């Protein structure tokens, strides 16, 4: 297979290697160095897709990221939606199709890897065209740490698509020398195939490196497919180039209509002739090199249709030499063609009026309406833009201190100017860093032809009868017309942002690179206002679309959020525990035995704790060590009850409130020494409580001599629970006198447990006789195994969080976050006893006297006993006063916060927050379930061992 539209002697493709690919079901070939678009053009394929709204055939307009038409769906090797054919590097086995509307996501999992790298530099240069290269070289020679990112596979930028000479040699030779020098600099990193897409605060530039996309199915699986670079740059130079813009005329959307500079790129970079016979329609000088180079490569240039009245002599002479006719003062008014442009209609155009039309046959219509600096990233960096009426474009105005543009991104359009501008930009960036840039000897570009200003022309009047602009496309991807813009202004819209939304211009994949400024121009003309006052559409990040997977990087699956496990985790797993996620922790939920349901397992675990002995892993409880002479003072201010009076060796339960008086956490506090306390927090709140305490300590009471340290993971904590717990403890801690008098409830002792130094606390979250054994985490498994072995004869049973919840609920010990929701005070929980009357103040106290807190009908924690003792109320169920459900809205009295089957009570029970709950003890209320109601009796929340007789065994 051959490529009929290749130009011999041109292009940077590797003709020795042939790549096979499929487009819209047809097999083609191309070469390394091609893009999908260039390979299609080389095969004579112009019709890439049909347009979204009108179904018109569309071709390739551009050669880069600005392409609005040639949007493709990759089908193989892995489906990827909506890529521009002009930026997809060709690889063997590529299978793609043209897209007119929506892309398709694969239902197969994407197994490719993605990752992220951080990088820091003095200077980041974006774009390896002439300006970017001189900027990088200048900074590199000054010894700066420089990163150069460039979206193309090789450096050179616009030089790759031109026939410019530098120092009398092809410009790419100069590029090669510069890059060789940069490669030799240890502090310079050049990243090709890397597109900067976001500029955030403090010089954070995000760039996407496509590492293996160009390898297709041959991509090695161990190499990340794409990589996000998070570059912190002290200074940034955007040498991002410029995008050529078209001019709107009738039927300006046919395949074969192409931006002039892009055609030049296809010839010089890809060795592709985009047609055989061309008409060139231009408003400025930049189309002439395209016309001349294409002519020299064998394209017949049927005419240059020049909107200006005058053409610089240099270009006229060059055209004359090649027999190219220039029609000055003319415009293209429309085109003919079926699948492809076949004729351009040309007419004189002066003083706003069209003269007589004439058709010129062609298979290629090149258009240049001028150039728009690529300022998306500069704008993201909060650089401001100004309208330059001379070139009809928005150019950088004010740059933030650490950001500048160079080359055509800044409105400099000559090669010599770009080369010089790059070096200057680097020098200014370096001097901002207190360094001196090296002056470069710039390569010679040869004499500059005398140029002339371009003409700013947004659209050509339509020669058609009927609605104005109704065949003139502005946004090719959205199929939006000049007539749509005029309809928007006619509807009363005065802002380009409104016009954008009315017409959808600029909302497509290309973000309006070829249509945005044109829209401003047409709106300004329609409203009779200055483009400068109207402004242009806001450019939003990212500058190019970025795959979700690339942004997610490695933060997926297990790495989405760290998994925290206790030192005993593997024992639990080996013993069949199922786990509950509590914050980042994996906590044993329950330990089903073979064939056992959850309900059966939990009842068995509860029974063991109430009748024999049971043990659990409580290591996830937050633990904060509080040390210093003022430790007691700090705790007095943060807990609702008094902590400073706690004796060394004793333990006290405490509650913390927010300043609004609502309970935020609870736990035990032990006094380790005169100036040392250790407090526990709920598992999920450990970090928050420490930060809360530090906040008060550091910002409000920095005079207090206290230090706070998290010791959560230092300890393994094992509650040993049940009437036989003392017997088990005696076996593993024979030296500890665990008699009630020697070791009373709410005290702690140092002891040796299974040969390990331990701190044993006599606290109980179940109401049973219980010992909380704390040992260094490293020794946790030794102690756990010893307890498990010693308890064997007593039937010791490991239990999980579910059983813990049942046992504590039977005793009405609340779980902060389950029985509370940020609107519940300690008093609401029936725990007025934990609120000190003696302390003059503590956090939350003042709020208790607010009007809402004084209401008699606050919601209070109560117990609920379903009339049918087998009915398990769902947690979260609402409570009403009537046995029948009235029409909505139904007055609700409260809700069920906890609900369980109790082995000890031999029935179901629940805790609930109920309006005026403590006054309703004994009342029957109703829980609506599935359209009926379940009667429940309101009770005191403590349903088991109300007198507390079991805690001493």
């Amino acid at each position, binding site marked *: 297979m051959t490529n009929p539209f290749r130009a011999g002697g041109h292009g940077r493709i590797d003709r020795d290697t042939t790549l096979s690919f499929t487009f819209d079901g047809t097999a083609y070939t191309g070469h390394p160095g091609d893009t999908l678009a260039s390979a299609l053009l080389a095969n004579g394929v112009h019709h890439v897709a049909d347009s979204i709204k009108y179904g018109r055939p569309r071709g390739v307009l551009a050669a880069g990221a600005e392409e609005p038409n040639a949007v493709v769906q990759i089908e193989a090797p892995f489906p990827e939606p909506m890529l521009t054919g002009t930026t997809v590097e060709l690889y063997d086995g590529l299978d793609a199709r043209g897209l007119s509307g929506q892309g398709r996501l694969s239902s197969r999992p994407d197994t490719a890897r993605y990752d992220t790298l951080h990088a820091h530099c003095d200077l980041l240069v974006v774009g390896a065209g002439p300006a970017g290269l001189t900027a990088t070289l200048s900074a590199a020679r000054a010894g700066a740490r420089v990163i150069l990112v460039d979206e193309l596979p090789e450096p050179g930028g616009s030089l790759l698509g031109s026939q410019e000479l530098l120092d009398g040699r092809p410009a790419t030779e100069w590029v090669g020398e510069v890059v060789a020098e940069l490669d030799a600099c240890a502090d310079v990193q050049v990243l090709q195939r890397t597109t900067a897409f976001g500029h955030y*605060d403090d010089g954070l530039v995000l760039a996407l490196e496509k590492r293996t996309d160009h390898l297709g199915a041959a991509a090695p699986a161990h190499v990340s497919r794409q990589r996000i670079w998070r570059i*912190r740059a002290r200074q940034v130079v955007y040498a991002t180039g410029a995008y050529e813009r078209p001019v709107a005329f009738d039927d300006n959307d046919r395949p074969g209509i192409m931006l002039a500079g892009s055609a030049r790129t296809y010839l010089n970079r890809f060795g592709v002739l985009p047609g055989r016979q061309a008409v060139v329609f231009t408003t400025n000088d930049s189309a002439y090199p395209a016309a001349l180079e294409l002519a020299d490569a064998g394209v017949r240039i049927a005419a240059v249709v020049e909107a200006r009245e005058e053409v610089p002599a240099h270009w006229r002479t060059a055209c004359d030499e090649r027999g190219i006719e220039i029609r000055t003062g003319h415009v293209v008014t429309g085109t003919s063609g079926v699948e492809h442009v076949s004729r351009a209609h040309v007419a004189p155009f002066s003083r706003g009026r069209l003269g007589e039309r004439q058709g010129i046959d062609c298979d290629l219509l090149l258009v240049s309406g001028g150039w728009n600096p690529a300022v998306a990233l500069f704008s993201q960096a909060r650089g401001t833009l100004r309208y330059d009426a001379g070139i009809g474009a928005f150019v950088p105005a004010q740059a933030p201190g650490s950001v500048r543009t160079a080359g055509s991104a800044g409105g400099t359009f000559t090669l010599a100017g770009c080369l010089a501008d790059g070096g200057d930009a680097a020098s200014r960036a370096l001097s901002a860093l207190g360094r001196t840039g090296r002056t470069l000897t710039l390569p010679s570009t040869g004499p500059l032809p005398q140029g002339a200003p371009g003409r700013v022309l947004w659209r050509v009047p339509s020669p058609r009868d009927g609605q104005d602009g109704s065949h003139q496309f502005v946004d090719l991807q959205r199929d939006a017309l000049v007539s749509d813009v005029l309809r928007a202004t006619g509807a009363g819209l005065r802002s380009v942002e409104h016009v954008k939304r009315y017409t959808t211009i600029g909302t497509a994949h290309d973000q309006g690179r070829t249509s945005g400024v044109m829209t401003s121009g047409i709106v300004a003309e329609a409203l009779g206002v200055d483009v400068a006052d109207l402004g242009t559409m806001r450019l939003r990040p990212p500058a190019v679309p970025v795959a979700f997977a690339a942004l997610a990087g490695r933060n997926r699956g297990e790495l989405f959020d760290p998994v925290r496990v206790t030192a005993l985790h593997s024992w639990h797993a080996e013993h069949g525990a199922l786990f509950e996620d509590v914050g980042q922790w994996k906590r044993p939920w329950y330990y089903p035995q073979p064939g056992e349901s959850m309900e059966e397992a939990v009842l068995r675990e509860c029974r063991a704790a109430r009748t024999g002995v049971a043990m659990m892993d409580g290591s996830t409880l937050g633990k904060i060590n509080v040390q210093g002479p003022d430790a007691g003072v700090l705790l007095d201010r943060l807990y609702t009850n008094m902590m400073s009076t706690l004796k060394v060796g004793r333990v006290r339960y405490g509650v913390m409130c927010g300043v609004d008086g609502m309970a935020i956490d609870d736990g035990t506090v032990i006094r380790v020494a005169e100036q040392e306390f250790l407090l526990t927090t709920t598992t999920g709140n450990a970090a928050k409580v420490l930060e809360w305490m*530090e906040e008060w300590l550091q910002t409000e009471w920095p005079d207090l001599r206290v230090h706070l340290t998290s010791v959560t993971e230092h300890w393994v904590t094992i509650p040993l629970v049940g009437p036989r717990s003392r017997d088990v403890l005696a076996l593993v801690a024979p030296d500890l006198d665990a008699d009630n008098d020697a070791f009373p409830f709410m005290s702690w002792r140092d002891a040796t447990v299974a040969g390990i130094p331990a701190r044993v606390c006599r606290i109980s979250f179940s109401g049973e006789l219980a010992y909380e054994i704390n040992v260094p985490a490293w020794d946790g498994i030794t102690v756990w195994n010893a307890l498990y072995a010693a308890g064997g004869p007593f039937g010791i049973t490991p239990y999980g969080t579910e059983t813990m919840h049942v046992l504590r609920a039977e005793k009405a010990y609340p779980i902060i976050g389950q029985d509370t929701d940020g609107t519940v005070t300690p008093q609401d929980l029936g725990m007025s006893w934990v609120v000190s009357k003696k302390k003059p*103040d503590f956090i939350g106290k003042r709020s208790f006297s607010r009007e809402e807190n004084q209401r008699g009908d606050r919601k209070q924690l109560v117990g609920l006993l379903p009339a049918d003792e087998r009915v398990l109320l769902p947690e979260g169920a609402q409570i009403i006063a009537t046995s029948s459900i009235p029409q909505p809205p139904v007055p609700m009295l409260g809700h069920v916060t906890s609900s369980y089957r109790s082995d000890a009570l031999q029935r179901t029970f629940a805790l609930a927050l109920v309006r005026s709950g403590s006054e309703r003890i004994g009342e029957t209320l109703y829980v609506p379930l599935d359209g009926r109601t379940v009667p429940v009796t309101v009770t005191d929340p403590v349903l088991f061992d109300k007198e507390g007789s079991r805690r001493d065994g």
Partner: protein
Amino acid sequence: MQLIACPWCGEREEIEFHYGGQAHVAYPDDPYALDDDQWAQYVFFRDNPKGPFAERWVHAAGCRRWFNAVRDTVTHEFLAVYDVRAPRPLLTGSAAAAQQRKGQEAS
């Protein structure tokens, strides 16, 4: 993502920090001398200026130290960082210009 200059650790990524809202809001000397309106001002009401704002940050994933900063809420730019016990600094140069520019809008 900003670089925030922790006074103790130097510049670190924003993800290491937690925000603490308005600075210089002292716990009332005597909460019981305040009526409910005044108490509510302390509990729930904070300034919300468009422009320079003295606010608190904590280097949560670093040294765990709280500090104050003046930051422009329009540009998000940090104009100063300072000790929690220090008064709000008078800003000079461009930071002062920003403060002045936005000062009228500050509440």
